[in-house]
């Protein structure tokens, strides 16, 4: 007599947990249940064609993630108990964590919200489940990053109010507005923006250098987070590629819509990553690879192969990728120079790179560093030595779209500032580039509302008219502790005392600095 197997096999389980979540409604119209699915113009003819990149069932997922979590927190505990922060390469490294915690971890939370939202909006059950699972991952990443870095908050300044700062501090409007733009789009644009353009095309530029950077600089807590997130990231990347192929295969009318999204989100992502470029080249005392090398490997080579593969769908590489490729020689230096001069308004410190670091940059940027950027640091170092550490006391113009100060230069003309301007319905708008201006022209109503930090200060919406009041009261940056130059800062002094050196010693690696 045949005994019915009570245990479902993996395939059956998956079926029950995903596709069987979908049924044909009888007393409600499908359009009323999924009202956001059509307005972007994307045509889906057959949702059953959705191939789940990872047939991971919920119960396997919980079990696997729980095991990872247990190991992760055991290492965090060991790191804290052993005063792991004393074993990092140099306290300057912690400034990369400050930027990460205020700039990136809140994006993980924004991604959680975004995927939770679109995980309700597709009539295809496979896509809904994939998005819901990713939402859980993103929430976990946001939490574990905060826990990984919380130990540093006990010993260094600037890490105390990351989520609050994310919503207010001038440069954090760059990552914040990036995700707000994506989350306020329709579900298909959100997936093209975050799953494909960010997770698939660009995320390696963030995660690989940052996690390797943590390893090179002795930060075991963050490295361990990185390993724990790696299998999730692999899953997210696979979803990103699946999303794009699925949409393109469904209907040829989808191609031009997706192409425009790829153009937009490649550029938005590239501008966002300019923050990462300076983190890699300047904020990691022990260098992993240069930004330009990372861009070559992870975008020019990997991205090149990807877009070759997508050619058969009628997709071409993103517009303005030539500008981004050329910019690999410049942006890390341009960004660091910007943060160096506005350190009075940041929750992290900046400094002049040491001699060995500058020599490393000369080697990595043979065409540009000695010619355009070394002279800046030599001038500023001299000023600092003479008691005039350079700060820019006037607020900068910001780009209406990416919200980065309009600091970039024209392709092939590294001394010419790139700037575009246009009028729209009687108002003037300013941009850092042709690409950002294009994005505005396509959806001006979206960007006329941009909350530009500089303009908000001038409108009197940030608790004060002067930078000092805004920084202290509105940003919650503790003046003289979190901000200004690294050399001589409380972090620097604390590090010297950990290492048993007197504060008259010069900063390690900053031998050119007048400490």
């Amino acid at each position: 007599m045949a005994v019915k197997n009570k245990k479902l096999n993996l395939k059956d389980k998956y079926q029950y947990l995903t596709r069987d979540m979908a049924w044909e409604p009888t007393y409600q119209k499908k359009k009323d249940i999924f009202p956001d699915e059509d307005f972007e113009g994307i045509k889906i003819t057959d949702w059953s064609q959705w191939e789940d990149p990872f047939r991971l069932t919920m119960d396997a997922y919980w079990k696997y993630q729980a095991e990872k979590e247990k190991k992760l927190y055991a290492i965090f505990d060991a790191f804290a108990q052993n005063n792991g922060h004393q074993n990092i390469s140099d306290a300057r490294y912690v400034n990369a964590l400050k930027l990460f915690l205020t700039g990136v971890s809140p994006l993980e939370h924004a991604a959680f919200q975004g995927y939770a939202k679109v995980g309700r909006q597709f009539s295809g059950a496979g896509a809904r489940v994939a998005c819901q699972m990713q939402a859980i991952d993103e929430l976990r990443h946001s939490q574990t990053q905060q826990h990984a870095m919380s130990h540093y908050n006990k010993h260094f300044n600037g890490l105390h109010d990351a989520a609050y700062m994310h919503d207010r501090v001038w440069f954090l409007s760059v990552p914040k507005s990036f995700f707000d733009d994506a989350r306020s789009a329709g579900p298909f644009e959100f997936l093209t923006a975050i799953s494909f353009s960010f997770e698939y095309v660009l995320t390696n530029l963030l995660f690989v250098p940052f996690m390797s950077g943590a390893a090179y600089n002795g930060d075991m807590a963050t490295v361990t987070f990185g390993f724990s997130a790696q299998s999730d990231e692999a899953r997210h990347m696979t979803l990103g590629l699946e999303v794009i192929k699925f949409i393109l295969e469904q209907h040829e009318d989808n191609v031009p819509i997706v192409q425009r999204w790829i153009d937009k989100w490649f550029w938005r992502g590239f501008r966002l990553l300019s923050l990462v470029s300076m983190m890699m080249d300047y904020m990691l005392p022990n260098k992993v690879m240069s930004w330009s090398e990372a861009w070559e490997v992870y975008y020019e080579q990997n991205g090149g192969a990807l877009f070759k593969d997508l050619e058969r769908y009628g997709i071409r590489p993103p517009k303005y990728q030539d500008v981004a490729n050329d910019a690999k020689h410049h942006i890390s230096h341009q960004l660091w120079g910007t943060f160096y001069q506005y350190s009075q308004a940041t929750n992290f410190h900046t400094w002049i790179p040491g001699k060995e670091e500058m020599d490393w940059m000369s080697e990595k940027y043979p065409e540009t560093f000695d010619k355009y950027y070394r002279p800046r640091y030599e001038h500023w170092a001299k000023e600092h030595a003479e008691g005039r550490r350079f700060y820019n006391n006037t607020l900068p113009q910001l780009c209406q779209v990416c919200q980065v100060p309009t600091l970039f230069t024209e392709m092939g003309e590294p001394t010419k500032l790139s700037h575009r301007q246009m009028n729209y319905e009687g108002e003037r708008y300013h941009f850092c580039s042709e690409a950002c201006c294009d994005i505005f022209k396509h959806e001006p109503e979206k960007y006329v509302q941009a909350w530009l930090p500089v303009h908000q200060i001038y409108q009197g919406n940030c608790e004060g008219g002067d930078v000092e009041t805004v920084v202290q009261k509105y940003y919650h940056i503790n003046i003289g502790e979190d901000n200004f130059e690294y050399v001589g800062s409380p972090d620097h002094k604390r590090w010297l005392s950990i290492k048993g050196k007197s504060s008259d010693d010069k900063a390690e690696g900053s031998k050119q600095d007048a400490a």
Partner: protein
Amino acid sequence: MSVNALYDYKFEPRDKVENFNGMQLLYVLWPNHLMFCAPFALLVQPDMTFGAMVEEILKPATASHPDAANADFLAAQWLLNDEPFTPDADASLIDNGIDHKSMLTVTTPGLNGLAGAGF
């Protein structure tokens, strides 16, 4: 083009002049002086004279650059919103045609920044 949305998507621009309490925004770029990473964003009174803007705002903003001491901004070459422009130092900004969120570009011949790097 316009935003593809589920509803009539229309919002007020956030930076209209009336939000600045009687003041207006002015941007000033000094090319070849990338020590100042981006054009300055300044909050100015529309009835301030052009000369006062140069003396009271632009000069202090640029003072930390070694070229600033030699710069004769009033005799320099100006662009207003990318068009050639001859300022009247005694007239107000508004009477000079400088409206809210205008951009001035001031080139100082012979002063091209440090180290031949436009810095």
